């Protein structure tokens, strides 16, 4: 089976915002189950809830610019049997309403799915530390669609992190997706590269460059950052004995942090973490910013070569 988009390494690879896949998945989830409801905090179009709102107006709830209310109303609706999806920009939700998520969703064990869009380079990993919270970071719009449908059918709280920008499409409609499973997208014996979100593309391109130099990297798409798929990751790193991670968010506490914890306890190995290094984002063209923060394939390949020296 072809896990990867045949045009992946080509210049004209298809690109689509990851959040668009969330929008399609939400409509599909709404058709699958009439208990699915969607709540938004005045960002319906840009978080791609508008198609759901058009098709199911009675199940779409506009909350206004009130992110604390967004998640607490959703918690209440889940207690009455609904399956609420809430969306806003990640800086506001879960950025602003973290305590409400902790108390009324996580401790309360409410079945609420939180979509944080426009997560970008600015918003750090605040959700991984919450018990009862799963963290999903899809690598492209196709995976986001599958993840959204899967989350609707899976009882319990979850956070799905979505990028704003057009992102190269890495997977195909046939690529399997399972919540909680990391997926080896490219096999190799010299180095394990683990990524989530838009950085999966950058790592695959970096692996292609490294291959030209005779370095064969294994690339793992770790779309479920929590709970972490220990078995898949440990099997790979025990083979390669060298590990890199990449994410577009803060490396501290995010995927990089999670892998560092896993390795520290089970398989201490040299590790290089690509991601935001204790900086905030800033204005600029997204590609310019990725370059500035060293989040592109050439930088990743250079880090890999350094790690393997």
């Amino acid at each position: 089976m072809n896990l990867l988009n045949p045009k992946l390494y080509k210049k004209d690879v298809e690109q689509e915002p990851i959040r668009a896949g969330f929008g399609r998945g939400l409509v599909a989830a709404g058709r699958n189950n009439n208990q699915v409801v969607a709540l938004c905090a005045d960002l319906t179009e840009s978080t791609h809830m508008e198609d759901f709102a058009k098709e199911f107006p009675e199940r779409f709830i506009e909350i206004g610019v009130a992110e604390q209310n967004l998640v607490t109303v959703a918690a209440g609706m889940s207690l009455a049997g609904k399956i609420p999806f809430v969306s806003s920009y990640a800086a506001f939700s879960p950025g602003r309403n973290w305590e409400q998520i902790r108390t009324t969703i996580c401790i309360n064990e409410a079945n609420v799915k939180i979509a944080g869009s426009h997560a970008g380079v600015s918003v750090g990993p605040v959700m991984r530390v919450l018990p009862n919270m799963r963290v999903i970071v899809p690598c492209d719009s196709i995976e986001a669609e599958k993840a959204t449908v899967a989350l609707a059918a899976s009882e319990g709280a979850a956070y799905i992190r979505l990028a704003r920008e057009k992102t190269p499409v890495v997977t195909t409609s046939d690529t399997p997706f399972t919540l909680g499973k990391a997926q080896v997208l490219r096999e190799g014996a010299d180095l394990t590269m683990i990524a989530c979100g838009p950085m999966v593309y950058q790592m695959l391109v970096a692996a292609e460059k490294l291959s030209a130099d005779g370095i064969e990297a294994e690339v793992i798409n770790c779309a479920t950052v929590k709970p972490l798929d220990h078995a898949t990751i440990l099997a790979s790193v025990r083979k390669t004995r060298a590990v890199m991670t990449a994410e577009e968010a803060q490396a501290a506490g995010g995927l990089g942090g999670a892998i560092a914890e896993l390795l520290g306890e089970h398989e201490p190995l040299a590790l290089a973490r690509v991601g935001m290094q204790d900086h905030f984002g800033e204005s600029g063209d997204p590609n310019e910013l990725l370059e500035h923060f060293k989040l592109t394939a050439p930088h990743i390949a250079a880090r890999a070569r350094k790690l393997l020296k």
Partner: protein
Amino acid sequence: MTTEELAKMANTIRQDIIKMLVEAGSGHSAGPLGMADVFTAMYFVVLKHDPKNPDWPERDRLILSNGHIVPVRYATMARAGYFPVQELMTLRKFGSRLQGHPERLRLPGLETTSGPLGSGLSQAAGIAKAWQIDGIKNRRVYCLISDGEQDEGNTWEAAMFAAKYKLANLTAITDRNNIQIDGPTEQVMPLEDLRAKWEAFGWHVIEIDGHNFTQIIDACNFARTIENKPVMIIAHTIPGKGVDFMEYDFHWHGKPPNPEQAKEALRELRTLGGRIRSEHQ
């Protein structure tokens, strides 16, 4: 239950609260004592519920937003038959279902987890909204909130939401006892004109004496007749009600009585209990 029986039950619940707090050695005194009459009216008259079947889907929901007054809820639930009265003495102890702040999944009948202030009304409104979508009209959501927690912006986000969606199946009750941890509410962060605030937010407001059973029950019944608006009942209460040295004193917001103080409090409450019959004759 007659008003006299309700008053006696509330007096028993107040004694339970004192015994629980002194046994636990920590917890809040003023709020639970002040809300004993409202809780008694809710569990023994107003609510449609079944203590032997706490998950009965058709029950009314009682959401407690200010979770720190939960000892009064525990005591009232025990007296209503949800669990044995002896279990009240496990409050705040390791392994107890009676957590210091309520946790939904620990004890059937709690409805939500709360403690951090300001998010109960939103959850109540979420339940009310879900029932509105499903066309469910034979149940009501009640939400008890404190006055101090109305400092929280989340409360007013919920107020706007409930008015926008015309959640007439939602009745909130404010425990207007005028104190919070740091002092009188009007000094810490003035709330008045509280009635005008809720009316301006699109709610129907009823003000009552929160220690008058007839007024509590009438207000809840009247709330059922209001169409297209949520209802806020502002219940004026006395913090520490029933224990002379605790009444009106904000220092009793967040501490329990010591054994000596508890003895005195129980003596006072028993005396008051003895007077209830004569007051109702």
